[in-house]
């Protein structure tokens, strides 16, 4: 058998086929809503974010201090043992300079891009990274290995969310060195 000798199915449609009514389709926007329980470990994590602190959970068997915190160690497969506070500083493990929004819409020219990053938080075990975003930094100055510090919302504005940290900024200002630029 060869694909070349077969009659292959699937009839390609153009956007205009739908607009002009050559083929019919039905549209629907689902009306569904959810309320997710935060659970025990993440519940405490969020409460502490509201207090302006980052809390992790330790397993005494593998000695890992884990972020995000969890009530059971997935590697030792046993209950974790205690709460441990981390610092609100860390290291950029990797990052991106993102010119689109979550819904694929484009960020208008002149507005700053999103800078998502994996941040290894000080006080947690090596490789315990979290997803967050960077701010107060020129995209061209962001480097892997850069030390960063959390920038918190004002206490009265915090609501027990990962966004109580608005973003992470460089611990030290840029040294005036410019990279070639990434675009």
């Amino acid at each position: 058998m060869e694909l070349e000798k077969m009659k292959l199915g699937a009839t390609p449609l153009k956007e205009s086929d739908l607009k002009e009514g050559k083929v019919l389709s039905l549209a629907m926007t689902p009306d569904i809503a959810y309320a997710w329980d935060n659970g025990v470990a993440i519940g405490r994590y969020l409460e502490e974010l509201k207090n302006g602190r980052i809390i992790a959970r330790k397993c005494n068997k593998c000695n890992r201090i884990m972020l995000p915190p969890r009530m059971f160690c997935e590697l030792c497969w046993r209950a974790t043992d205690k709460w441990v506070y981390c610092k609100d500083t860390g290291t950029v493990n990797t990052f991106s300079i993102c010119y689109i929004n979550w819904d694929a819409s484009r960020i208008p020219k002149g507005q700053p891009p999103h800078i998502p990053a994996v941040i290894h938080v000080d006080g947690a075990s090596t490789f315990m990274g979290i997803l967050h975003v960077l701010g107060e930094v020129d995209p061209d100055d962001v480097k892997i290995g850069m030390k960063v510090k959390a920038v918190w919302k004002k206490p009265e504005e915090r609501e027990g969310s990962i966004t109580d940290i608005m973003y992470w900024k460089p611990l030290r200002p840029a040294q005036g060195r410019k990279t070639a630029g990434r675009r």
Partner: protein
Amino acid sequence: MGQRVAIIGAGMTKFVRRAQETGKELAWQAAKAALDSCGLTLKDIDCISMGCAPDAFDGVHMKGEYLSDGSGGWRKPYMRHFVGGGTGVFAPIHGWFHVASGVFDTCLVVCSEKMSSCHPHPQGAFKTIFDHTTEQPLNPTLIWIFALEYNRYMQTYGISKRDIALVSVKNKKNAIDHPAAHLPMEITVDDVLNSELLAWPVNRLDISPASDGAAAIVLAGERTARRLTDKPVWIEGVGWNLDTAYWATRDLAYPRYVEKAARMAYEMAGIKEPKKEIEIAEPYDPFTYKELHHMEGLLLAEKGEAPQLLVDGVTQRDGDRPICPSGGLLGVGNPISAAGLMKVIEIFLQLRGEAGKRQVPGNPTCGLAQAWGDLMQIGTVIVLKNR
């Protein structure tokens, strides 16, 4: 193990941006073509292994049931499999279990996907892949994860975007010879680097297109396979492995779970030196860097070495180790589960010498297909031999 298992037939639809057909109709077209290719009818099939991606893409809850009639599943033992992007190799792995166990003698494996239904684009569905409490409030797009992994891979081994862009050039060109291809193109590295920058280091031409399409294969136990075809292609090894869903806590430069899946499949297939014994491979390439990342995880290249093999031409169709001779997801297209099964079909055709203009020289005897998915955490691997 009960019995050896062979692939004896295959079929697929074209991969297109938007198909007039429903997912069921696509599944039917591919499944019927696969049965026709080996002269069987649905009556000859003992069980069905079906694969399809997240229900949210279609807005159809319990998609396995929805697609079951087109897949030939009614009044038969029918199972739907789903591990995100890894599904297209996971479904044949589970078809293999059905037959290798000796419980069934034949199995029809079908993968069907409509990516176009989530309109105008599936970003809202993709967002729900992230943890709802600790990640979604940051408004992530799926591309973030890939951009973050791409950057980490590049920086760890000192690889340039220019070298990685070559994957897109190679695969889209290979796809010109694939009759089902969605996005075959002759482009240059500069075209990739100058395409729209979405999330540095990811440009538009680093990403495979979302497609509609379906693919299917027929599996049979050894005696039946030898009766029905002169050219059975044997499934000699299968493997899969899942890493942590706390993806930000992983070493993003190296897909350890792919290595574990590959080692499982190699051990079963008696492969000691994958670099020598795997003559042809279809690693999963939804993004350019993933082909290279996966070659390393599959032990087909040393860590950080895959880009050099690409630059040296080793992975071209006429190179020493052709990689993605089909054109891959970047060129043939990405109807998630069907894309993975398309890769299995490509190795099947290559090992039978029936890949048309895509045929690699040297009569390969052993090849591999691999897919990757869930929250960048699963590797699924299948090793095929023609003797």
